[in-house]
């Protein structure tokens, strides 16, 4: 089981079984990345964390994660795939990929990062922010296959994976429908007046109503 902390609007802390793949979807500025990082960071268990970012630079992702997690930098590996990496990142637990369209490069970096953590950590958590960026570069069917293979692999490794999807940049409802398919659980976020709300679909014993979520 993986503890995801008390960031989701459930009664008490949320736990998910080993191998669970979760997708956070919502409009821009609904806090998808922050929520994903909070879910990755709730970790009193010596879990390794790998973050793939196509949205920000790898060093920004490191900083954001460490602000939330407070510790665990030694067990963090970040893959910068925004195509806008600068500077020397050697030895800092950062891998870089030239473009979000380089699916092979993302796969190889992920494999290296996992291998690097092996033996030093108990569990493994993967964050991917965001899948919507890939759709700007690669056709939806290929992105679907990539995500399918990725989530299957991560499940087999017994990890917990949290991906994000920005619904505003994916014009096509069908693409969103397809990309939800490989996931065990979908967490939808929305702004409702001054509140922020979440709805959780696919977790056992958790209802699927919209509930307020803290900012």
């Amino acid at each position, binding site marked *: 089981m993986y503890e995801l902390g008390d960031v989701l609007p459930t009664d008490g802390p949320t736990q998910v079984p080993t191998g669970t793949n979760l997708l956070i979807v919502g409009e821009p500025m609904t806090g998808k990345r922050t929520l994903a990082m909070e879910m990755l960071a709730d970790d009193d268990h010596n879990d390794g964390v790998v973050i793939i970012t196509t949205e920000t630079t790898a060093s920004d992702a490191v900083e954001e994660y460490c602000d939330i997690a407070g510790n665990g930098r030694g067990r963090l590996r970040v893959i910068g795939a925004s195509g806008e990496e600068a500077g020397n990142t050697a030895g800092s637990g950062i891998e870089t990929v030239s*473009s979000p*369209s*380089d*699916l*092979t490069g*993302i*796969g*190889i970096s992920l*494999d290296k990062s996992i*291998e690097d953590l092996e033996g030093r950590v108990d569990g493994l958590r993967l964050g991917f922010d965001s899948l919507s960026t890939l759709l*700007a*570069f*690669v*056709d*939806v*069917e*290929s992105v*679907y*296959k*990539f995500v*399918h*293979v*990725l989530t*299957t*692999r991560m499940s*087999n490794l017994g990890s917990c994976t949290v991906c994000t999807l920005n619904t505003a940049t994916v014009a096509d*409802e*069908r*693409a969103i*429908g*397809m990309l939800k*398919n490989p996931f065990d659980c979908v967490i939808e976020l929305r702004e409702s007046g001054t509140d922020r709300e979440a709805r959780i679909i696919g977790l056992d014993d958790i209802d699927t109503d919209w509930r307020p979520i803290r900012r």
Partner: protein
Amino acid sequence: MAASGDGSASEDTTVLIVEDDTDVVKTYRLWLEERYDIHIATEGSAALDAVDDSVDVVLLDRLMPGLSGSEVLERIRNRNLGCRVAMVTAVEPDFDVIEMGFDAYLTKPVSQETLVDTIEKLVTRSDYTERLNRYTSLLARREALQAEKDEHELADSEEYAALEAELEEVGEGLDTTVIGVDDSGGFLATIRGIDEAAEKSEQPEPEREGE
């Protein structure tokens, strides 16, 4: 024979052996001919003549007179053939074989067990990829139907019911053939295959060659 006959691949798997050493060819043939349909090429250009859509797995010697293994691989990939290519090499390669476009590598001397295991693994990966492709197009079709039709129309649609049934069947197979991506090599080779087949946009313009 050391290997048992209950593997998932069968006689309808076609293996092309590309190897210039006739003793090695003889050995491989002896080991493999009961299980697979074997084709032989003793140098690179003959390999390119022999390879077509019916070939499932190519065992490619890295160093041959004439075209090298890497050159043969590149030309096979350019022809978009669905075959898997295992590089056979005397020394462990000092580069990433997956990045290079190979699906696996074998270091000489190769045992019968390793050879058969590798072929079986590559056939499993091909099955997995085919199934995933099928599943993806079914899913895309279902999403399209859902966008076009309302709930009642979907309930009455024979096409939709057939799609749902096939999705379930293909999806179950996908779950049980996870061995296609359960090792690092299988994972990366599968992703590379998806990457190569992807339609990409907004790529940097390739440099124009002097036309």
